[in-house]
Each structure stands twice: as structure tokens, then as C-alpha cells.
């Protein structure tokens, strides 16, 4: 069977993925690998995954999305899932599946804003901790 691949677009420091086709397990696994590969190649800091065209998210797809988000975060990239249909959200909860701490947003606009905020927060945290380090060096000296 030929597995269709889902395009991954780069936009500034982010990647954009829109799932426009019904996913089967192998496609979901391939997408996971492709996203991680793109993060590592481009150094992208965030990924927006649009699932507004997905009519259902079962336990396998849900778990794959949640795993991908955790894997991406170990590569220092944040994943935001956008556009989940209300019926899909209802079914996911009834199924007993939690997407864990995966960030979600209503639409692409809000997902983008969330990523930008997250990125600037991470940036300022880093500066803060660097400053603290300098202080401690001063103290010891």
C-alpha cells in the first residue's frame, strides 16, 4: 500500500502541518517521524498541527499525537494542536483518552499566538537563569 505523506511547511521559526486526510496507523507513525525529522533539520521552535479536517481521533491517533508532542519537547520544540472539532473532543473524553499536557488551541491564529508567547517566555527564563548564574559567580568570588 502506498502511504500518502502529509506536507510539513516551514514558516519563520515554526512548522505548519495540516492533516487533510483520514489517517490510518501507519500514516500517523510516518507523520510523527516526519515532524521530528523536520524539527531536527530546521531547528524549528514550534509546530502547529491543524486537525480541523479530522473527523475522528481514536486511541491510536490520539496517543501518537500526544507522544509526538512529548518527543518534540525533548528536541526543544513546542507542539500546539489546533482546530479539534467539538464532536471529536467529546468522543476523546468519553473514550477515556487524555492528550496529557499537549497544548491545544481553537484555531491557527490562537495556536500561533500561543507559540509566540511560549517562545518569548522560554527566552526570558533562559536570560533570567543566566543572570542568576552570574550573580552566584560574583558571590563566590
Amino acid at each position: 500500500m502506498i502511504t500518502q505523506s502529509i506536507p510539513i511547511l516551514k514558516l519563520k521559526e515554526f512548522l505548519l502541518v495540516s492533516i487533510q486526510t483520514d489517517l490510518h496507523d501507519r500514516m500517523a507513525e510516518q507523520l510523527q517521524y516526519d515532524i521530528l525529522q523536520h524539527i531536527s533539520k530546521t531547528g524549528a521552535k514550534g509546530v502547529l498541527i491543524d486537525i480541523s479536517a479530522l473527523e475522528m481521533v481514536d486511541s491510536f491517533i490520539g496517543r501518537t499525537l500526544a507522544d509526538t508532542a512529548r518527543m518534540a519537547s525533548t528536541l526543544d520544540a513546542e507542539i500546539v494542536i489546533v482546530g479539534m472539532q467539538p464532536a471529536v473532543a467529546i468522543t476523546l473524553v468519553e473514550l477515556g483518552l487524555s492528550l496529557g499536557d499537549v497544548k491545544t488551541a481553537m484555531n491557527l491564529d490562537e495556536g500561533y499566538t500561543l507559540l509566540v508567547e511560549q517562545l518569548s517566555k522560554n527566552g526570558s527564563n533562559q536570560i533570567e537563569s543566566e543572570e542568576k548564574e552570574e550573580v552566584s559567580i560574583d558571590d563566590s568570588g
Partner: protein
Amino acid sequence: MIVVRIKDVGDIIKARSAVKDVAEKLGFGIVDRTRISTAVSELARNIYLFAKEGDVQIEELSNPHKGIRITFIDHGPGIEDIDLALKDGWSSSNGMGKGLPGARRLVDLMEIESQPGKGTTVIIEKWLKG
């Protein structure tokens, strides 16, 4: 009755979409259609994972309930302990154990018949309300 043969991972999509078409024709709303196709996805995947192949039969129900009945038949290894398989979080495949118990929560009726070594038949029904 519509029958979808499950042999390949892509056949899970075929089963889902055949069921979705029937559910839509019968007048199920978007939330119930999503529940039904998600349950079908879980149960068709069980066929693919455990039995390698089997059939998904889709039929219309009229009495006593109007609705849809979907039957999953395989001649795979069967389920040793159905009560255990229906427990949340229990999994024989290193999955998350959401398949059977999760699917059961999405439908109005679920019946499982299984003989170890002979195969498994799972019947689910979703009824139209009102």
C-alpha cells in the same frame, strides 16, 4: 448488509467510512457519528492487530430500536478473559487498553463472544433517540 474485509491497516479507514455513510443516512447527528466511527476504528484495529483478518458487517436496525448494528468477526486467537479485556487500562498489546472499554462507552450495546483459539465476535449497536 454491507461487509468490509479487514486485511490491511488501510481497511480500518474503509470500515470507518462505510459505517459513517450508513450512520449519516440513518439520521445520526455529528456527535453520534463520531462516536460510532471511533468505536469502529478501535474494534477494526483489534481485528487487524490480533487476528490479522476478519469482517466488519454493517446493518440497519429497526426493531425494537432504530439504529445501526456493526458486527466484527474474526478467527484469531480469541480473548481468554473478556472481563479483564473490558477493564480500563488493561492491554495485551502494549497499547493503552482503551480499545474495548473505550469503544463500549461510545455505544448503546456491546456483546462479545470469544473462544480461545477459535476467534472473536463483537457486536455493537447505536440507537437513534427520539
